[in-house]
């Protein structure tokens, strides 16, 4: 088997890169183990919410120059980042994913605990505002579902109250959900969303909420609707004479799963090959140090050859990097992982402090080609959460780094092959 590009990982970064390449006529294979960070999405894409020292950022692009030179954004450069950002909204729209945003300024997403978090873009239906006082002075009805324990009306209500938003918490009993209750792991967002996808069920919810409404300006409901198509969210909103906000729940994320599916479909529609439930392993190396081919756990021999490989295997949770008592490593290619040597310095004692290990990742050159024993692997790119140089959780830059590095790598691969053609 031979492809132009093999992409390892099925998350945001890999999908964006794969779609861009495939749409330009490159023959791409994507190897996806299954779940990825989109399944645990917050409903928004962060670009740069705060600086490494914790200072909040309102205009992310202007702040890039203050980041360390090893930061992925610095490797790309501000001008290119801005052009990628401008291209992002039409790109996602072309995949059937409308996004909300406020140009080059950060917006504010309402979280499940009633705080506002800075983000760059947000999925449609996610409560996303140009300022964090957008709800001040309003009255809210917070609605949950009987037996659903992964949405916390009291916590949300308390958070909103501190902002001057008064709220009332109610719970709706939907008999269609009774069968899910009691079974471990079943009464979770996606299990509920599957059932509420049926018209009779979401309409019953809409009617119940309408009956409970008592002049509130806002209705806040858990995001357990629109798993197949987000238009359901609009239809429910039309039934209720108030502004309806869909707030994220404990994972899995219903909108994240929908977005992941739309991106995957866009990749396949463009002609890409998607290998589901498989993992890359056992690369074979050419004498010049480039990757000749890769194997997968299920396919075995012979190897899959490609001109270039894009490695977007995620961070620790995606198993893009692994940790052991004596260090961190890359499980597939053995690329260099940038990390502290001493185990004691990997973590901070406070859970919510910036955790050093979150910033560990694979070292690359300026073009995001991976380093192995300090030397660039010419045809192996590294994208997304796997990259060293940024603590994306602390900075709120996860999606931004994923999208920007994917676009940059796609452009680099296309430019390189064009040059070869000349």
């Amino acid at each position: 088997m031979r492809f132009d590009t093999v992409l390892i990982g099925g998350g945001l970064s890999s999908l964006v890169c794969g779609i861009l390449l495939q749409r330009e006529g490159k023959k791409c294979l994507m190897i996806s183990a299954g779940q990825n960070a989109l399944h645990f999405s917050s409903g928004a894409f962060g670009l740069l919410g705060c600086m490494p020292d914790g200072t909040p950022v309102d205009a992310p692009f202007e702040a890039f120059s203050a980041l360390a030179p090893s930061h992925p954004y610095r490797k790309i450069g501000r001008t290119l980042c801005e052009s990628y950002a401008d291209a992002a909204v039409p790109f996602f729209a072309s995949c059937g994913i409308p996004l909300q945003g406020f140009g080059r300024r950060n917006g504010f997403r309402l979280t499940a605990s009633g705080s506002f978090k800075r983000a760059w873009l947000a999925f449609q239906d996610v409560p996303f505002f140009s300022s964090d006082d957008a709800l001040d002075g309003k009255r809210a009805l917070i609605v949950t579902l009987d037996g659903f324990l992964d949405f916390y009306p009291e916590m949300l209500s308390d958070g909103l109250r501190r902002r001057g938003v008064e709220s009332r918490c109610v719970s709706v009993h939907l008999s269609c959900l009774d069968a899910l209750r009691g079974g471990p792991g079943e009464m979770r967002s996606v299990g509920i969303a599957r059932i509420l996808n049926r018209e009779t069920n979401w309409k019953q919810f809409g009617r119940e909420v309408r009956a409970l409404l008592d002049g509130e300006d806002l209705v806040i409901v858990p995001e357990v609707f629109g798993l197949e198509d987000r238009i359901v969210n609009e239809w429910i909103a039309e039934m209720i004479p108030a502004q309806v906000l869909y707030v994220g729940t404990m994972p899995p994320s219903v909108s994240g799963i929908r977005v992941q599916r739309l991106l995957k479909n866009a990749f396949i529609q463009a002609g890409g090959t998607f290998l589901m439930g498989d993992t890359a392993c056992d690369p074979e190396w050419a004498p010049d140090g480039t990757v000749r081919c890769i194997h997968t756990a299920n396919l075995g021999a012979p190897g899959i050859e490609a001109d270039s490989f894009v490695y977007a295997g995620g961070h620790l949770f995606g198993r893009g990097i692994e940790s052991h008592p004596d260090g961190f490593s890359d499980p597939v290619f053995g690329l260099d992982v940038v990390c502290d040597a001493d185990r004691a310095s990997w973590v901070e004692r406070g859970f919510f402090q910036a955790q050093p290990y979150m910033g560990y990742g694979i070292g690359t050159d300026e073009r995001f080609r991976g380093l192995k024993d300090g030397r660039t692997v010419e045809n192996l790119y590294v994208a997304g959460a796997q990259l060293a140089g940024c603590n994306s959780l602390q900075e709120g830059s996860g999606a931004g780094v994923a999208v920007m590095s994917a676009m940059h790598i796609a452009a680099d691969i296309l430019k390189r092959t064009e040059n070869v053609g000349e």
Partner: protein
Amino acid sequence: MIDVAPEYDVIIIGGGITGAGTARDCAMRGLRTLLIERGDIATGATGRNHGLLHSGARYAVTDRESAAECIKENLILKKIARHCVDDTSGFFLTLPDDDLDYQKTFVKACQNAGIKAEVIDPEEARRAEPSVNPAIIGAVRVPDGSVDPFRLCSSNIVDAKLHGAHVRTYTEVIRLQVRQDTVEGVEAVDLRSGEKLSFRGRVIVNACGIWGHHIASLAGVNVGMFPAKGALLVFAHRVNNIVLNRCRKPANADILVPGDTVCVIGTTSDRVRYEECDHLSVTPEEVDLLLGEGMKLAPVLAQTRVLRAYAGVRPLVSADNDPSGRNISRGIVCIDHEKRDGLKGFVTITGGKLMTYRLMAEQATDMVCRKLHRDIACQTATTPLPGSEKGGIEKVLKKVWPTPTLTQKALLGRAGALAGSLPQEEEAGGSDLVCECEQVSVSEVDAALKHLDVHTLTDLRRRTRVGMGTCQGELCSCRAAARLARKASDPALARTQARAFIEERWRGIVPVAWGETLREASFTEWVYAEVLGLDDTL
């Protein structure tokens, strides 16, 4: 001046297993009893050990008195606290590095102490417990088991209250009222409300474990404690069903105990400064030692995820100069300060072990009764704890849950016969699960919030095992916090309790933060900070 302070026959300071057991014994003997604890129950050494139901075999060679006490109490606890006990039996294994001759000494010493010790073929040991190191050259079977110290402590508290005792947690004793040569009462502060409190007591019992040193100093007397820190690791699976010990003189990390869904390796033993007892942390060296020695007992531990690390302080009473404390007797120390120091109305009960808590309580209560000139016999050796009544669990299985669900089985394991009295089916939504790892339902959480002096999520964990499983609270802490906030009618608690609980869980993860443990923690970080926004200051 009118003194309106409530008067008790006995005030027990300390809500560990010793204090809880003493409160139960005193209340059962009809004494007006108050127990005061500055934190939650079982927060000290009680909740920070292996949870090993010693047969006494471990001490047979070196500390015969403790060994004999252990086996006696072992047999009693298997009857009176059967819902807290897992009668697994135990092996003492001889590895190629160990001296097989020690086995003979060991077996003889066990027999002398009245402990059944049966030499078995290594092949049989490997068959009975597949996790054992296949290289073993000797094995002895003894009646070890495991015991849930939180459950045991809580059951004693429940029974003390059923017998009329008053229990005040989160109440710190700040002064002892001493008039001339007699301790007459205590002054305390309610740490939650800040209220100053005063109680008069005819006898005060100091049952504070290592912190007894401090309480004694408030009375102007000295109890020379020897704080010996012991570190332990919890693994994410129950790799063994039989307790595994090394057949050698007691040393570091030579016991692996299965408990509920997990297993625990320990311990180390190092003297620490008294001031460190409130802020123990487990060092990388201790972790490496525990892992290295643990793998010798059960090699599969090398591939098993470590859930967390923790450490406790043994309340040993100082003897000769012994840097590790390994050679100090685990025997019971019950001090009548009137005899020793000329101070009336003050008793210290310390030393001993989790295993011998009941006997410690009996000795302390006997002393209290003598001082009060009350001649009432102790009945704790024969009266089952609530939940362990004879035939009680069987009755629940027969009449309430003929075909119990997994959750009901888990609850039966935790609450014993009391499980049958929870409004499991009656209340709508009661069977919804708060904690999926440990199968804790909404009704069990609600019952604990209502009846078991629960003020924080960590208290709730000690009563129900919420958050003790493989996810370490990731899924359940917000669920449980929301429930707690609703019951307390204080919405702010949902956020503060969820945050505090996840911080507490993280502290135990920090020393073992690598591999699957760190991977899972990275996911929790992402969810709590980015998705839920719990990192934001409001």
